[in-house]
């Protein structure tokens, strides 16, 4: 469902991705790991279509459609979901109002039946429960005054309701304590299924103890430099990224690691 071929991308004119290849098939969970500054978050944002994240070469196809030709909302309507690393606050716009607008648009685009308010509220409450978020949060402004952990759980709650085809999770584990991490992982695991692809972007191996990936890729200097199964993550945990990056990709990797 996701086919990335020789992708080059720059952020505000600065080249970050330099020939990245990745294929995600339905039912697969991929983890993208790598040192800080290697381009992990850039990849997630390029795929979702953030302003100023520009594809300069190669292509990224989602269900055969070139993502570069689509507006961010069109990508979302096709079923691409990004759980943000730093979810932003929208004061005065309630979570419920936000979800209603999002679900109306996405479900209509996908030809799914519209949920009436009662159904929506019931589903939203269930989703809150799944990620251990009090239903009161539905009435509050989007992420308004939420703690870091609450924001991350709010993202997963939205993801559960949106039922995306492809979920990109950008460092969802950062800033979470172990309990919250398990809750979030439980939410993500409940979405695993034969028709859905999941891409986890993470710096640490510990998330992968709870969401076990089918594939692990190491990103460095804007390219995937090694791919493997879940055991690759463990090796990385033992040896550090320097194990892979100190060789051919040299000082670039080292510098990023210490940054």
């Amino acid at each position: 469902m996701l086919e990335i071929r020789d992708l080059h991308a720059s952020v505000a004119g600065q080249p970050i991705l330099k020939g990245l290849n990745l294929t995600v098939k339905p039912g697969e969970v991929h983890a993208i790991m790598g040192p800080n500054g290697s381009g992990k978050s850039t990849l997630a944002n390029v795929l979702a279509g953030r302003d100023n994240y520009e594809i300069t070469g190669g292509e990224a196809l989602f269900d055969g459609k070139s993502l570069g030709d689509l507006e961010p909302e069109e990508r979302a309507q096709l079923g691409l979901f990004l759980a943000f690393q730093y979810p932003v606050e929208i004061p005065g716009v309630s979570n419920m109002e936000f979800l209603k607008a999002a679900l109306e648009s996405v479900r209509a685009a996908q030809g799914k039946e519209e949920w009436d308010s009662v159904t929506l509220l019931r589903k939203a409450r269930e989703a809150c429960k799944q990620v251990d978020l009090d239903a009161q949060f539905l009435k509050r402004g989007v992420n308004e005054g939420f703690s870091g952990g609450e924001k991350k759980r709010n993202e997963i709650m939205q993801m559960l309701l949106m039922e995306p085809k492809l979920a990109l999770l950008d460092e969802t584990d950062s800033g979470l304590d172990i309990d919250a991490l398990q809750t979030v992982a439980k939410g993500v695991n409940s979405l695993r299924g034969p028709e859905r692809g999941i891409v986890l972007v993470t710096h640490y191996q510990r998330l992968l103890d709870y969401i076990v990936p089918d594939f692990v890729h190491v990103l460095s200097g804007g390219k995937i430099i090694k791919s493997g199964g879940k055991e690759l993550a463990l090796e990385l945990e033992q040896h550090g990224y320097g194990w892979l990056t100190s060789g051919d990709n040299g000082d670039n990797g080292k510098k990023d690691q210490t940054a």
Partner: protein
Amino acid sequence: MSSQAELDNSELDRVIRSEYEAGFTTLVESDTLPPGLNEDVIRVISAKKEEPEWMLEWRLEAYRHWQTMQEPNWAHVQYPPVDLNAISYYSAPKSMEDRPKSLDEVDPELLETYKKLGIPLHEQEMLAGVAVDAVFDSVSVATTFKSKLAEAGVIFCSISEAVREHPELVRKYLGSVVPKGDNYFAGLNSAVFTDGSFVYIPKGVRCPMELSTYFRINEANTGQFERTLIVADEGSYVSYLEGCTAPQRDENQLHAAVVELVALPGAEIKYSTVQNWYPGDEDGKGGIYNFVTKRGVAHDHAKISWTQVETGSAITWKYPSVVLRGDHSVGEFYSVALTRHAQQADTGTKMIHLGKNTKSTIVSKGISAGKSSNAYRGLVRMGPRAENARNFTQCDSLLLGDRCGAHTFPYIESKHPSATIEHEATTSKVSDDQLFLCRQRGIDPEKAISMIVNGFCKEVFKELPMEFAVEAGKLLEVSLEGAVG
């Protein structure tokens, strides 16, 4: 950075470039005075309205004083001088000449106009619980639910009718809050005012329905000089709403209104405005000059609350104020002012604390888009007797794009050591991150911006009567809607 800014602007421009839905013109034959202002014009207006002698004298005194006054220039707005001799001071549909006794006698064309604006005047079609006075150019077309209100002792009629039918009340209170010579535009209004509403709520009565006046300017080259007077007797309560629209024209038109509120001891007046005068086009051509004086006096334990949603007018110059004369009186001002294209708004409030233990709250939300300018100007004055007076002010500005401006001019004067004044101000932009979050969830940018702006205004919208809160939200949506194509 610059490419980012350009991106932002093109996106936002698309979103904020919307059509003005109330811009149509009604084709009726009108009786319009030739342009120009002099004492004879005032005599004609007074005669047309069959006013008593004292009213004419009052107008003439106002006019003579006004001639000595200067147009104010301290506001943060710019416009070419208004030629007051180029506009007509009275225009009324011919069909209104013989004062229709009931709606059946009113020109269907006029009724249709209001229907098109979403204000059906037939009682059975109206929002239950809202009485309407409909003012078209210089005359009141109809006032609904009058008899039902009369049962409660409430007087709700046009000011012209009140001058004839309730002269004792009008004489006592007209000009008592905004004197004839208060300021240039109020002076002009006092001389030439044509129509507006009059409300009297008797002692201890809670007005059984929302009252509302709908102002429509139709005729070209005319000014509208509305005059509204609301008197809430001791211990009474009334909620009142005014709405305004005008056709889309290339010339600027003047709207110089005066609104006076009197809240006698223990009374409460809630006054809401949804102002949607034609704002002019993208380049600032045309639109209404809205120069308005609104003020209320709150006696002991009385409360006056102004809520305004301002989306229209080429220029807005307006400071709904409360004089907290009585002890324990309360004044509130909740405002949303949206400017786009080349609109200019200089709006805010004055809270004049005279009595002890008086309390005022100001919440102002300014939203600027396009190349518009949006200024909040507010005065909080604690007088020498204002023991334990308190004020809280919150001014928030939201910028859409980077060619617009937001300004805050707070004036604070305290003559009592026990007075407390708090002022908070913020300026923010609709951030790319907020917009991206919405779009990533499948919400298109137009809807996203309107949602974010509505969220920003929520504190003020919740002060509006329920029926109108929905309307105000929609109005904001329409104002922000892009003609995407």
